[in-house]
């Protein structure tokens, strides 16, 4: 969203609630790469990801009346829809935990060759982030956010006591935030 927004968030929400297709088109153009990025990383499969992205935008269009400004920003709300829809789809496929880890490790969309042809990706920033996060930090964040793993599952994967998962998560995200600050 480096391009100058011609709409404020409030205008976007109002437009959507009024079923303004022009506004919806604008919303799609600006946010679909971020949402597709989430969906694709969750599912690791382009075909399913396209279907799920379509579902995500239909949900946004249909349930905008449920969006509550008080509860957070529009982008957060849309990300949640994308993440939840994709994770639901992942669960319906019954992926095993090991498979999820495998997918995160073999994430083809993070390969530089792919990144160069995807202009939406801030690949320089991302590669810096990935360089500075250690494997455990990246795993804990990605397993939770992109694979919808529970605290129990993460404790099992990292072989750490359940009670320390939240602390590890905090440390990982603090590290992530420090890296982002330096970009």
């Amino acid at each position: 969203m480096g391009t100058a927004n011609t709409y404020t968030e409030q205008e976007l929400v109002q437009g959507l609630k009024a079923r303004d297709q022009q506004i919806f088109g604008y919303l799609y153009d600006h946010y679909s790469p971020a949402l597709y990025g989430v969906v694709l990383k969750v599912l690791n499969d382009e075909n399913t990801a396209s279907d799920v992205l379509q579902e995500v935008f239909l949900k946004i269009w249909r349930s905008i009346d449920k969006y509550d400004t008080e509860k957070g920003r529009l982008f957060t709300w849309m990300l949640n829809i994308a993440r939840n829809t994709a994770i639901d789809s992942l669960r319906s496929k019954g992926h095993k935990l090991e498979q999820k880890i495998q997918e995160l490790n073999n994430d083809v969309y993070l390969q530089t060759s792919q990144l160069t042809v995807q202009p939406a990706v801030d690949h320089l920033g991302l590669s810096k982030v990935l360089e500075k996060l250690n494997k455990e930090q990246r795993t804990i964040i990605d397993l939770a956010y992109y694979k919808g793993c529970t605290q129990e599952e993460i404790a099992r994967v990292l072989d750490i006591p359940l009670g320390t998962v939240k602390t590890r998560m905090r440390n990982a995200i603090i590290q992530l935030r420090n890296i982002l600050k330096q970009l």
Partner: protein
Amino acid sequence: MDVQRYISSGIIESFVAGLATDQEVRELQASMVQFPEIKAAVEAVQLDMERYVNMQSVTPPEVVKDRVFQLINNEGVETAVPVSGGSYSEEESGYPDEPKVVQLVSPVWKYVAAAAIIGLLASVWMNVQYFNSSNEWQGKYQALLTDKDKMMADNQVMQTRMDESEKMLSTLRTMKMVPMYTVTPTRPGLLATVYWNPKSEEVLLTVNNLPAPAPDQQYQLWGIVNGKPVDAGVFDMDKASKGFAKMKTMVAGAQMFAITLEKKGGSPTPTLTAMYVAGKVSG
């Protein structure tokens, strides 16, 4: 609530990463309303997480946008949402002019009917389930009632035994103890003890060591009053060797107690050759 501690507990990061449990989410949302610093902390972490997520953006295939718009446009016709955007009253007024409305009615009824039938079937099924489970519960309830009655009865028996024991213990304290030892060297080490209250004339007997009698025989207790044996009754070995056997009363003048082995049911006079143990009442 210690806000700083809560903020640094990792709960916020877990929430933003989608790791928090439902309960933790509810807790956090409640404290966000209550404490602005928690809300600010959540928003700060959220912003950075979104930045990280945003960095991994990928442009979706062109076709998705077309499909989405096609779908919402079709939807627009079906539900008569005005494309130009407008109030909901236009949406309602849009209905009568549409020829499709007529077609819309019948599919809706089809669904309603289908739903009603499914609902009915589900209800029948539920009733059967309830009937079965209610029968099952009825049986379990009866079993429980029987168990309860049995336990009450058992309890009653225990209570009676307890009362008896307690009474016996307090009686024992006031009784004279008369140990009876072996009388013939051929049968060494025998011992039985009489507890006797000369006032109430009550007699209890406990057997410490006596050989088991033959099936057609029984031990009999005697009190010796002024040199003459007085029957104190036969007793059940099992009861007397495990606890106390209540014997016939014995008059205050008894100077001795003795046990002889007699035929089953006892004898009017003791068989002196078969006297096993005897003991003097102490002054």
